């Protein structure tokens, strides 16, 4: 049996669960509808470190008892586990490919994209959504996004992703309709990268 939740130091969830969830859902929907465009997920001012406010808000909005969650080594701390178990009630899994949602706070040590659940031909939706916490949306790689939801092309900047990410993304894009979806978060901001989007650096 798992260890009891440390309620004395537990961080609060949404102030208003209904309205905050709706606002975050809308923002997340926009993030995946307009790939490469920065969205603000700012309803979570005080998340348990090392989770970014946007990461925590997204988890509170979407994770529940049916969402196995994988945490990378940096995120796999007692405060984060307690936060997710108490507020989302989600099971925490040990292997990346068992997760419906994966949280990566240290992209340099992240598993390659192919290690996460890719879905299968009959159920492409049984794939993972992976959250990468990156260091900046204003510096680093200039990335061009092309595909559904983008008129011609969309240029954005990312810092804090490993070099292999872009090669892996090309492979991920080629597997369509299989493959993972990625949410990049930085502070209270997020960028959605659905598997249907083509990226060039």
């Amino acid at each position, binding site marked *: 049996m798992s260890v009891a939740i440390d309620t004395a130091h537990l961080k*609060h969830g949404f102030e208003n669960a209904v309205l905050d969830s709706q606002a975050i859902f809308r923002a997340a929907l926009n993030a995946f509808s307009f790939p490469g465009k920065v969205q603000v997920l700012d309803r979570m001012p005080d998340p348990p470190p090392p989770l970014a406010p946007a990461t925590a808000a997204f988890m509170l909005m979407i994770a529940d008892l049916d969402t196995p969650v994988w945490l990378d080594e940096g995120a796999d701390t007692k405060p984060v586990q307690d936060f997710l178990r108490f507020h989302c009630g989600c099971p925490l899994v040990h292997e990346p490919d068992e997760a419906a949602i994966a949280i990566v706070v240290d992209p340099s040590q992240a598993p390659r994209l192919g290690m996460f659940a890719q879905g299968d031909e009959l159920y492409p939706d049984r794939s993972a959504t992976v959250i990468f916490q990156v260091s900046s949306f204003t510096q680093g790689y200039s990335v061009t996004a092309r595909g559904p939801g983008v008129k011609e092309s969309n240029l954005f900047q990312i810092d804090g992703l490993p070099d292999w990410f872009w090669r892996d993304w090309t492979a991920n894009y080629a597997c369509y309709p299989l493959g993972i979806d990625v949410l990049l978060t930085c502070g209270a901001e997020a960028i959605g990268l659905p598997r249907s989007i083509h990226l060039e650096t």
Partner: protein
Amino acid sequence: MVTPANKLSPEQARRRAWMATLAKATEVELEEVWTGLRLDPDYTWLRRPEFGSTLIRARAGGTGNPFNLGEATLTRCALRLADGTAGYGYVLGRSARHAELAALFDALLQTREHGDLVGNDVIAPLAAGQAKRHHEESRRANATKVDFLAMARGVSLTSNVANEDKGYDKS
């Protein structure tokens, strides 16, 4: 899955008992004793009262195999006192205040400062009243109990011997 009572520590067993008492008490009863206590502890919400449903399982006759009886509305909340003690309220029905009071009492019962007071002045009388009501109800129900028994009428209802004798094809 419910943990059997003998697997719980004494503290857990006591807490389970008082949480059950608080859940079975009515909102009016709790409100009354709460006002009587004149306590006004500071607390913050960990989880604001929310409604949900829970699956009720039962056993036929109290001893048979468990089956799913149906779903019931449940209100739950969790709060934290200024000293860090967390209280949980899980009550049937849709009363945010009932769940809140249950969580407040649950938290106070765990504190050194108020635990004994609340235990003696709130939980003990409530539990006694509930036990009395339960006893009263089962006494009334028991008075209407009917025992059914099947009378033997010469032919055994469970035996196939008669059919076999008549040569019925059993395949």
